[in-house]
């Protein structure tokens, strides 16, 4: 469900009214999800779900057409020796690589996601951000991962950040918009919650934790706060917004804990690639390694799994 009307800043809610966040309580709740013991068939189901939710990502200055093409092959053929594997949700690249990825993926139902808006810093004039967004969409991007202007947000220029998101949303046209809050630069969970509310009201289809270029990137507590913001927005408006934790989730075990948290916070409706994504580069292989172990009873070395 993509918003068809572009919001204007009269829709910006009073962020001072957004519910407070108690960090100690959030950490406690997040730790509790990690005590869930996911075994046997529920584990295998989770591992498949995780693979199907991955935005397989390469965002390096040294990316080449060759590397992106290879990554797309990996997205299609995760590990052919294991039967019945799903494919990942999307391949996530820089705008200049969208065309390459689109071609490499061909008719496969794997989306191309492109970062835009002067990723990862967002330090560019708005018209350039919009131009970059339009270019990525013209090249064939199905999804745009934008960054918010953290400087403006931290200065309290909420209207400015809101308008920028709304403008990028408009530039996206049919493409889905993921809004990266870069929570590692926001400093407090209260700000994470407010930024989430702002982004959703401005038209985000997804909210996303991090660029992966700043530490800390995604954490369970930060993701929990964003999920709770999504839930409150859904209670109020009936509109579902997707969630994408990105950066720092490199093991299957941790990803399963993210799924547990998702299940117990937003429920089953969100447990599909349409509403939940993992932004990750090395997660897929760890999940494959676990699936191989479930199938054969032994762990194989990393050398048995293609890197890209």
């Amino acid at each position, binding site marked *: 469900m993509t918003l068809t009307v572009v919001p204007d800043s009269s829709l910006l809610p009073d962020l001072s009214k957004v519910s407070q966040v108690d960090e100690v309580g959030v950490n406690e709740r997040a730790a509790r999800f990690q005590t869930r013991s996911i075994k046997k068939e529920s584990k295998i189901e989770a591992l498949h779900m995780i693979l199907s939710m991955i935005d397989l990502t390469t965002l390096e200055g040294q990316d080449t057409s060759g590397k992106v093409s290879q990554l797309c092959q990996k997205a299609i053929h995760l590990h052919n020796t294991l039967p019945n594997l799903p494919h990942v949700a999307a391949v996530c690249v820089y705008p200049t690589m969208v065309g390459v990825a689109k071609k490499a993926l061909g008719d496969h139902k794997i989306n191309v996601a492109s970062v835009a808006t002067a990723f990862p810093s967002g330090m560019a004039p708005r018209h350039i951000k919009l131009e970059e967004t339009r270019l990525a969409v013209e090249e064939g991007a199905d999804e745009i991962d934008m960054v918010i202007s953290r400087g403006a947000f931290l200065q309290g220029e909420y209207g400015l950040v809101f308008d920028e998101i709304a403008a990028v949303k408009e530039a996206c046209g049919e493409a889905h918009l993921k809004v990266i809050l870069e929570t590692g630069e926001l400093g407090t969970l209260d700000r994470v919650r407010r930024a989430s509310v702002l982004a959703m009201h401005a038209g985000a289809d997804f909210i996303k934790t991090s660029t992966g270029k700043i530490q800390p990137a995604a954490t369970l507590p930060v993701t929990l706060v964003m999920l709770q913001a999504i839930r409150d927005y859904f209670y109020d408006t009936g509109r579902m917004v997707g969630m994408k934790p990105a950066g720092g989730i490199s093991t299957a075990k941790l990803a399963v804990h993210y799924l547990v948290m998702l299940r*117990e916070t937003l*429920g089953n409706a969100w447990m599909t690639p349409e509403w939940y994504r993992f932004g990750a580069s090395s997660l897929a292989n760890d999940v494959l390694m676990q699936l191989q172990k479930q199938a054969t009873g032994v762990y194989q070395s990393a050398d048995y799994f293609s890197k890209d």
Partner: protein
Amino acid sequence: MDNQNKLAFDGGWQYAPAPESTDHITIDGQYGLFIGGDFVAPESGKYFESINPATEEVLSSVASASSADVDSAVKAARKAYNGPWSKMKAAERGKYIYRIARILQERAREFATIESLDGGKPIRESRDIDIPLAAAHFFYYAGWADKLEYAFPGKRPVSLGVAGQIIPWNFPLLMAAWKIAPALACGNTVVLKPAETTPLTALKLAEVVRDAGLPDGVVNIITGAGETGAAIVNHDDVDKVAFTGSTGVGRIIQRALAGTNKKYTLELGGKAANVIFADAAIDQAVEGIVNGIFFNQGHVCCAGSRLIVQESVADEVVQKLKDRMETLIVGDPLDKNTDIGAINSASQLETIESYLRLGQEEGAEMHQSSRDIPTTGYWCRPTIFTGVSQSNRIVQEEIFGPVLAIQTFRTLDEGLSKANNTPYGLSGGVWTDKGSKIFKMTQKIRAGVIWANTFNKFDPTSPFGGYKESGVGREGGMHGLGAYLRLEG
């Protein structure tokens, strides 16, 4: 507010059963009384069964101690007190207590499993809370053994003699630790009676005491029902009585002790208010409500069984609480994913169910989670009542189950008055983002323990105890030492 934008928690991805194994534990078919360092048969030859409340299967049969057995236990304790224990150097005494703590840690998994089997509490709680905290109490009081003069500067602390201790079924091992650790550290010997429905971890603790090499008779553990407890309380050679349990029994004990020289501490019932202000971190407060009332099936004397929520956020809190209740897993206590285990006994389940009927008769609206519960054993779904009044019995009386009564308030004074309008005063909770409000409320709520922006947190260093009908005396921390000492000079 009945929001039509509903979240769905049924169906979809489910957690496969993840039961803790029971291969690693041994439970004997029959247990005698642990008196004078040995397990001995009861004088009457009578035994009673301890069952698993989740399956109704018999776990073991344990001895029923008569007053003659109580007498021999008290004699053994007196002999040990007069003999080695009161004459031993305090640092040596401390070593024994440290040893108990370490053995408990080493055998933690076994204790956790037996605790969940015998009492019905989720293994997550017995593993992460009960057993580690029990060991922590022994560690903490072991450290005090040779430092008692520093706790009471200018006084000479003297041990009392034989302590008679009676503990409840909700935290069997933990309550045994709360009682035994400070008593031993202060140089007393003990006769302890665990609850009738949950004797097994106390009997296992007797094994630990034996393995730790404590002199015979320093710790005596005897099982039985109410009459056994009464015999301990009324025994002439008992110097101190420590009781945790219902207010009704507490009253009988206090009456029995009036006019005697015995010191006593009574840890009784509660009906704690959890007060949520509109400026609280609501999502974390909802977690606090859940921890407050659904922890250990609500079998907690300090449970936050009354929710008093500011009216402007009441609808939001209730909606979120209802959704959260759908994610609580009720079932096999040994499953690592279980959030709410079995009700401890058939009779307790009956009590809880009678309150559920009563609440509805009183006109309150009852809401329960829709999740499945097992068909054998004793179970109760997490339950909340809205639209309740201060005059309702479900607001005034302790239910001791996973049942929450929800009221609203407008001003701080109204919230405070509701919180205090109860014969109990064991614990309370305050949720607000504003520090000044925390101080105002915590100073004025008349309860022994008050948590701010959290609930049901325990630590050996922190004293615990009640006002009014919630009891007398404090256990835990430095205060807990005073209950087992006479201060001279």
